[in-house]
């Protein structure tokens, strides 16, 4: 290896790539824009839909209830509900989203309450449908409150204090500091995003610098120079690695900035609400990123490096085999799924790091990042993952150099 030559090739490839609109888009524009779009665009639309759904008055059909005028009247009086006239095809109406829920008040409901008999009140709703779900929750709350009031009244009647049915109170106390909660909530998402961006950032330049050069006839020109092929490969490899890491870095910066702006704009309002939901929403929108252990981020960066090397070398070797840019695309595109699969498995709850999984490339990164970002450092696993990733990266790089030295690949007829 001759570093002077490697640097010469690298600097030329860098200049060449920076003049290429397609590389600029994949390396700079996409990662900087995708984060704000995901965070604000998707976030805003989701929260709007949620708010709208929650604010909407729930249309309820009351089935029966002629002998329970008190319950029906109080349902009608409740501002959360709009009671619609009874109809036999209520199930169809719920399915068609004409009404959200229906409640079947059994015959003799109110009289039975007086006598102390247990009754069943069926609530009809559509599982998985957002607005129906919100509606059935509101209706259930309403009847739960009614039940509580009935219990209280019965106890009072018999002169029994209310504490009889509340021997003790359960209180859940969270010991995880806020940054750990944030790490758990987004810890799975960040590595997933990094892995994909790391791959897509390397994809375009890898194809352009190999198959693209073959197609344009510049590869042969380059091979005529006295520079050894290993130096040409390394120069190109460093360029692809640069593109990959730039993509990741820019998206992380963009994510940080978006999160900062997000906290500035939405932070105060969510804190004012102070509900569990608001906290969860804040975590999901990246509002807790600044609270993430900075050491965790450094750990992620250190472990991403060998994976980025693996991707860069692998993509170079595969697209080198292709004769044209189009052919390279057809080899590389299916690989995205191969890369996404382990990243997605790492996102699943309950998949925990163990010695075997620590050897599975990509999946191990996804899992260990989740741990590091929530402040858990299993040094034995981390060193195993770093070691194995480096090994895979070196093998991929050696394979790539080998491919460059094979004339059946370089001059494929």
């Amino acid at each position, binding site marked *: 290896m001759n570093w002077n030559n490697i640097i*010469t090739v690298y600097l030329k490839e860098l200049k*060449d790539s920076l003049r290429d609109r397609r590389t600029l888009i994949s390396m700079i524009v996409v990662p900087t824009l995708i984060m704000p779009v995901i965070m604000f665009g998707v976030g805003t639309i989701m929260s709007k839909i949620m708010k709208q759904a929650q604010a909407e008055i729930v249309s309820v059909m009351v089935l029966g209830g002629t002998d329970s005028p008190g319950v029906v009247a109080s349902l009608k009086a409740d501002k959360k509900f709009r009671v619609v006239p009874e109809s036999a095809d209520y199930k169809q109406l719920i399915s068609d989203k004409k009404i959200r829920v229906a409640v079947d008040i059994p015959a003799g409901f109110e009289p039975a309450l007086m006598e102390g008999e247990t009754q069943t009140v069926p609530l009809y709703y559509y599982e998985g449908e957002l607005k129906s779900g919100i509606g059935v929750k509101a209706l259930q709350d309403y009847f739960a409150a009614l039940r509580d009031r009935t219990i209280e009244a019965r106890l009072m009647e018999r002169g029994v204090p209310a504490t009889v049915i509340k021997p003790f109170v359960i209180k859940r106390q969270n010991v995880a500091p806020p940054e750990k909660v944030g790490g758990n909530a987004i810890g799975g998402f960040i590595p997933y995003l990094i892995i994909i961006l790391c791959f897509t950032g390397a994809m375009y330049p890898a194809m352009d610098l190999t198959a693209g050069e073959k197609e344009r006839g*510049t590869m042969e020109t380059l091979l*005529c120079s006295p520079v050894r092929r290993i130096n040409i490969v390394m120069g190109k490899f460093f360029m692809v690695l640069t593109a990959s890491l730039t993509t990741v870095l820019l998206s992380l910066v963009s994510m940080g900035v978006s999160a900062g702006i997000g906290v500035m704009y939405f932070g105060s309002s969510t804190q004012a609400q102070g509900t569990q939901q608001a906290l969860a929403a804040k975590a999901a929108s990246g509002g807790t990123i600044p609270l993430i252990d900075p050491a965790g981020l450094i750990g992620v960066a250190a472990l991403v490096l060998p994976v980025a090397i693996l991707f860069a070398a692998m993509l170079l070797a595969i697209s080198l085999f292709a004769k044209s840019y189009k052919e390279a695309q057809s080899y590389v595109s299916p690989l995205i799924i191969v890369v996404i699969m382990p990243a997605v498995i790492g996102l699943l709850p309950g998949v925990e790091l163990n010695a075997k999984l620590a050897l599975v490339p990509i999946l191990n990164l996804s899992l260990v990042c989740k741990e590091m970002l929530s402040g858990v450092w299993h040094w034995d696993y981390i060193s195993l993952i770093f070691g194995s990733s480096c090994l895979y990266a070196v093998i991929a790089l050696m394979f790539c150099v080998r491919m460059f030295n094979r004339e059946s690949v*370089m001059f494929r007829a």
Partner: protein
Amino acid sequence: MIEAHNLTKTFQDKKRGLITAVDHVSFTCRPGQIYGLLGANGAGKTTTLRLLATLLQPTSGTAKLAGFDVIADPDKVRANAGFLAASTALYGRLTSREMITYFGRLNGLADAEIAVRLKRLADELDMHEFLDRRCEKLSTGMKQKTSIARTLIHDPAVMIFDEPTLGLDVMTARSIVKFVRECRSRGKTVIYSTHVMSEVEKLCDGVGIIHDGRLVAEGTLVQLQARYGEQDMEEIFVKAVGGEAALEAAALKN
């Protein structure tokens, strides 16, 4: 100086099996001379020249360029050779100046040295007007001049031309031919492949006729005319390869 000894190159082809693209080819080109490699399409010209430029490795046999062996010292061979082919393109997004400078650096030249040589080449080839234009924006003639300057920036002793006039207009082709002659007058060893008979007649001091991977005839134009009893290069060529039937058979094989 180029000395080829029994150069042989075989390829494995999925459909056709083992193909001998170059079959025990031996020849010598001396400094200050142009050696023409004449052959039909698919005769093995490009493979022979790629073997000389060390882009490919010979299956057997070897060659020496400027005293360096293509197998033992491929880097030194490339450092002493300039390779220009229809298939050696320019980087579209680099300017003509950047392109030439890049190859100067790849040849281990210092930037100051490159600047001096580039100035001289631009003077000779009349390139100043478009030096800072991107290669993708250049006309075919300008591109050819840039390619020529690219092959000459390290002042190689051996020049390898693989059908350099292929697909060019008359004016550009003429300027290339003129440039090849200049290389000869500067004492460089020149090998020039073509399937255009008239170029051989105009340009070459020695001719090798290649057919089906084998060198079937070799000599000066006068020697070949005497041997085959023909004045016209085309007639000599057809006789040397064994008649029109042999040419047709070879064309069908490809």
